[in-house]
């Protein structure tokens, strides 16, 4: 069967077999030990509808479900072929490395459904999967925003509503991580003149592990859902329906992807730069990806740990966060056993730096695009590069600002407030650098540039709403209200969504050799940006007028119905505009006119090779001889594709005879 040749299909089959194996393993073990198959005998399946059945039938078998999910991921990865080479190495078999389609005779498009080692293919795989998740998360938002458009609407059941907002949050986070992975994996090797990443097999693994992760996360909605929000705080999460476990496990695997992928980016950036490319001659995006990767590599472990601890609390009774559990010894600070606040410390130690993972690459894209379309150097390149590192560093020191009213020790509030406000300084350096880059330019308004500019305006709203949340007294009013929702949507859109779209439009001609439709691109921009402004300002306004977050409806008397209606409509406009982009890029462009090698007249390395790029992007080693952003200086060269014989004569990076 030809469809079985697709890795994705084999992966799904392997995953299902793994799941069945894991499930049976636990049930079998229980039965062998004389225990009943059902872990919780009080839970009975509700057979009234298919949905109710799915939501209730699995709950009594929670440990089997968890082990099943783990083996689902293992089976998937074996089935898709992401571990084949490594398993061969364990048996001592050499595996030659090759570029291009793995199975001779399969069409080019099949590469994207298989394990492929080319970073360009992997980048596209990340990107497409990310866009798919954006669609799922966006659809969920459309549904619950319908209910919130007017006061006291209740057509969605409360538990279903809570599941939807929880799923929306984490699926969007997954989409962002995938988008970040897309940009890093696609662009970093191109920009440093490398033909691939340092560890291509690891790269493929890091992409594919996202698929079982995303599937587990999405399926959580159907096996009982969960009502904890994307933050999963115990004790609520330790009491939540079964869906919370698949939420935990889905996040675990997506997090694993983050860690492995970022490791690759760091090593690649350190070891595979072209001769002549000193650190301060790298394109600024590589700095952004590098800073992002440092965060991903280290902090992600903490969300894995904190979720693992709740998972174990649920199935093993290990009461880390359960104050009312059995007591071994009564600690005088709190009654009983565990402390729910510990979870928040561990969780936010990742989840705050995570937001810098979400935005640093996008801010790097803005810094990358502005010089090209203003035709002048990036203002203060070194400062901008350092600001990414500074944001990453300071970002590790602020996590407890999510916990100002959590009941943590009061004396911690002031230091965390100070560190939180401090992040504004390197962020400001970026903003002012963008202004300096635009000033005195010769600006061209193509769609990528429009989205970069839109990103700045939207990120500005997000950034400016940060300090009121950073000072504790005002945070005591605003935390957990829609003000926060407005703040983080603005920062997420400004720091990721807009720049990601800008990057899609910008590199689309390079990747495909075709030019997108500029008019439709402009239409997308002019629909999405004003709509987003309306959505942000609306959310911020209602948050200061009594609208809590994570609620299914609100009272008439708050008087915010009109603002909420505008927020919902804005959301629909944004959704529609994104559909226009998808139609533009993925449908209409197939018959579009061909784009040349360098339609944007960029100095970047990848623009000096043909579009679409050959499998081996750089046939000869690029030698960097100048600055990346020296636009406006006639005769200044960034890179030289010197013929091979001259290479040894140029001292940079090649230290003459290895």
């Amino acid at each position, binding site marked *: 069967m030809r469809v079985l040749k697709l890795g994705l299909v084999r992966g799904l089959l392997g995953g299902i077999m793994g799941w069945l194996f894991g499930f049976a393993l636990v049930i079998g073990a229980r039965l062998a030990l004389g225990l009943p198959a059902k872990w919780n005998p009080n839970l009975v399946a509700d057979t009234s509808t298919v949905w109710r059945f799915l939501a209730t039938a699995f709950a009594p078998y929670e440990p089997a479900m968890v082990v099943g999910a783990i083996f689902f991921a293992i089976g998937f990865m074996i089935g898709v072929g992401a571990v084949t080479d490594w398993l061969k190495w364990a048996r001592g078999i050499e595996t030659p490395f090759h570029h291009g389609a793995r199975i001779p005779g399969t069409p080019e498009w099949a590469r994207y459904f298989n394990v492929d080692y080319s970073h360009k293919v992997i980048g596209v795989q990340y990107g497409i999967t990310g866009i798919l998740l954006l669609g799922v998360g966006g659809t969920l938002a459309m549904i619950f925003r319908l209910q919130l458009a007017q006061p006291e609407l209740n057509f969605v059941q409360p538990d279903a509503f809570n599941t939807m907002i929880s799923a929306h949050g984490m699926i969007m986070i997954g989409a962002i991580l995938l988008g970040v992975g897309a940009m890093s994996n696609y662009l970093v090797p191109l920009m440093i003149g490398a033909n691939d990443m340092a560890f291509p097999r690891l790269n493929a693994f890091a992409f594919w592990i996202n698929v079982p992760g995303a599937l587990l996360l999405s399926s959580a909605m159907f096996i009982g859902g969960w009502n904890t929000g994307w933050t999963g705080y115990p004790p609520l999460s330790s009491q939540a329906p079964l869906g919370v476990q698949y939420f935990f496990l889905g996040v675990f695997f997506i997090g694993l992807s983050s860690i492995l992928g970022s490791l690759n980016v760091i090593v690649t950036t350190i070891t595979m730069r072209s001769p002549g490319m000193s650190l301060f001659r790298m394109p600024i995006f590589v700095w952004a990806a590098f800073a992002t990767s440092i965060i991903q590599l280290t902090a992600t472990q903490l969300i894995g740990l904190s979720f693992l601890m709740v998972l174990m609390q649920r199935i093993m009774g290990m009461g880390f966060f359960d104050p009312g559990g059995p007591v071994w010894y009564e600690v005088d600070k709190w009654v009983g056993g565990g402390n729910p606040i510990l979870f928040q410390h561990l969780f936010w130690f990742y989840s705050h730096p995570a937001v810098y993972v979400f935005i640093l690459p996008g801010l790097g894209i803005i810094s990358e695009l502005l010089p090209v379309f203003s035709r002048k150097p990036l*203002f203060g390149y070194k400062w901008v590069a350092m600001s990414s590192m500074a944001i990453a560093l300071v970002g590790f020191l602020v996590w407890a600002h999510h916990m100002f009213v959590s009941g943590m020790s009061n004396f911690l509030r002031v230091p965390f407030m100070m560190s939180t406000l401090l992040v504004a300084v390197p962020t400001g350096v970026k903003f002012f650098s963008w202004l*300096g880059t635009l000033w005195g330019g010769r600006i061209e308004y193509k769609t990528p540039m429009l989205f970069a500019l839109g990103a700045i305006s939207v990120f500005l709203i997000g950034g400016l709403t940060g300090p009121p949340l950073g000072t504790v007294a005002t945070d005591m009013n605003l935390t957990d209200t829609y003000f926060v929702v407005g703040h983080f949507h603005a920062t997420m859109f400004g720091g990721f969504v807009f720049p990601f779209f800008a990057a899609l439009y910008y590199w689309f001609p390079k990747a495909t050799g075709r030019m997108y439709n500029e008019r439709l691109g402009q239409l997308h921009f002019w629909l999405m940006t004003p709509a987003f402004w309306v959505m942000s300002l609306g959310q911020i306004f209602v948050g200061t007028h009594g609208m809590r977050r994570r609620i299914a409806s609100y009272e008439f008397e708050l008087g915010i119905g009109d603002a909420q209606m505008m927020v919902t409509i804005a959301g629909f406009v944004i959704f529609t505009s994104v559909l226009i982009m998808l139609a533009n890029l993925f449908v209409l462009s197939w018959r579009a006119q061909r784009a040349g090698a360098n339609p944007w007249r960029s100095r970047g390395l990848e623009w000096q090779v043909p579009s679409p790029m050959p499998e081996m992007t750089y046939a000869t080693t690029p030698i960097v001889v100048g600055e990346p952003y020296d636009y406006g200086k006639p005769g200044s060269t960034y890179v030289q594709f010197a013929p091979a014989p001259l290479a040894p004569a140029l001292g940079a990076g090649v230290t003459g005879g290895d």
Partner: protein
Amino acid sequence: MTNASTPSGAQQTALIVSAHPLFREGIARLLGDQAQVIGSVASWQEVQGLGLVQAPDVIIVDHDSSDLQEKDLTPLLWPDADDLRVIYVTLSGDKMTVHERHQVAGAGEADLLRALKGERPGASARSTQETTASQPIYTVQPSQGRMERMDKGTDKPKYTRHFIVVSALVAVVAIISVIGLLAVPKFPQASTQALVVDWLMDLHLGVIGILFALVMVFMLYSLFVFRRKPGEEGDGDHFEGNTKLEITWTVVPLITVLIFGVIGAVTLAEVTAAQDDEMTVNVTAFSFGWQFDYPELGIEKATTLNLPVNQPVLFKLRSLDQDVIHNFYVAEFRVKQDLVPGVPTQLRVTPNVEGAYRLRCNELCGTGHTNMLAPVNVLNETDFTAWVAEQKAAVSPEALAELGAGLHASQGCIACHNVSGDPGGVGPTWKGLFGSTREFTDGTSQVADEEYLRNSILNPTSEIVTGYAPVMPANYADVLSEQQLDAIIEYLKTLE
């Protein structure tokens, strides 16, 4: 390859590059015997080839030859390219005008230093021409063999007019923004804390307005004034940065941040300060309702939060041990605090405006989170005292049913049990419940009398009616007083 690294002394060798033979002859003539012309070529390829062989000291390039404008000089980094100078000149009549000077150095700190000082490399280029004023000097990093521009863009006065216009616009927009932001109607205030919080928020709004204006005006101004007009070729102004500016816009925000940090600490202290004469109210949250105890007044398990105006209150907050995290928030009071199982917390509020407000749970706690509300009334002294007295009196049986109706809403029952008769809720409808025959999931059945009702409130999972799930919270035994339990049952009796 020999190299004439001493500026004077040995004769320099020169290579002339131009597409025009006349130029080549003219230059050669001008040079006379100041330099030995070792070659006269027409293209860069020939330069490369000749250079490898002859290694000239200076290359004289025709500035007017358009195809020599591509000044990619890295091919000239051939081995032993010490002290190579490249000069772009135009020739008119007998005058050679130097337009650009480049120096390629192969080794040696001395060369680098000379180049950095902007010193002219040697004698030969000096004597026979007029030099134009602005010539970029290139320096070389010898060990890396690359060329780098040395001059940083200086702040030329050509943007002065623009800066004046932009500054004026920023000022105007800032004023409008700040006024506008401060004018947005605020949610009503009802506590002394609200005054502090709103004051700080206004301060924030002021800074937000200014920064918003600064960034947006500069951006929009640039987008309009510095756009590429149709037909315009060429690039933008080439400046790479300005260290003074960078330092300024790092230090000024840093100072601002520190000031806000201090203000933040001071306001936090103000908002959380212990007052003399505080009244303690114990707040217990459960899924999904609230319970208030006034230990100093001897009132227990009240379901409405009544407070006397201008009386500082210390709320002692706790969530039941097997319960989840909730949050105490009255929007008019402007402060909130989580209620965490096992971790007692506190919140201080001094309500100062009489009125009816609402307490809303502000931390997602499950199914009933949206409606986990309680009425809050800030009363004058007389009314409050009357209410206290009322709480302690016995309640008549008829009033019990009314009390029960209120409890249906305030204790979270309403989240799952409707009174309309609709069987599709999370829990069975209360309409017609009392006295009906209940069928359970284990096959048994029972008439719903008072004892059954009491049991199904206090031990909700002991018997489950078919078609419903065992999800009712089990903590009502801790939450409801005997009177409240009676009240609910009385209420149920009235729902036929």
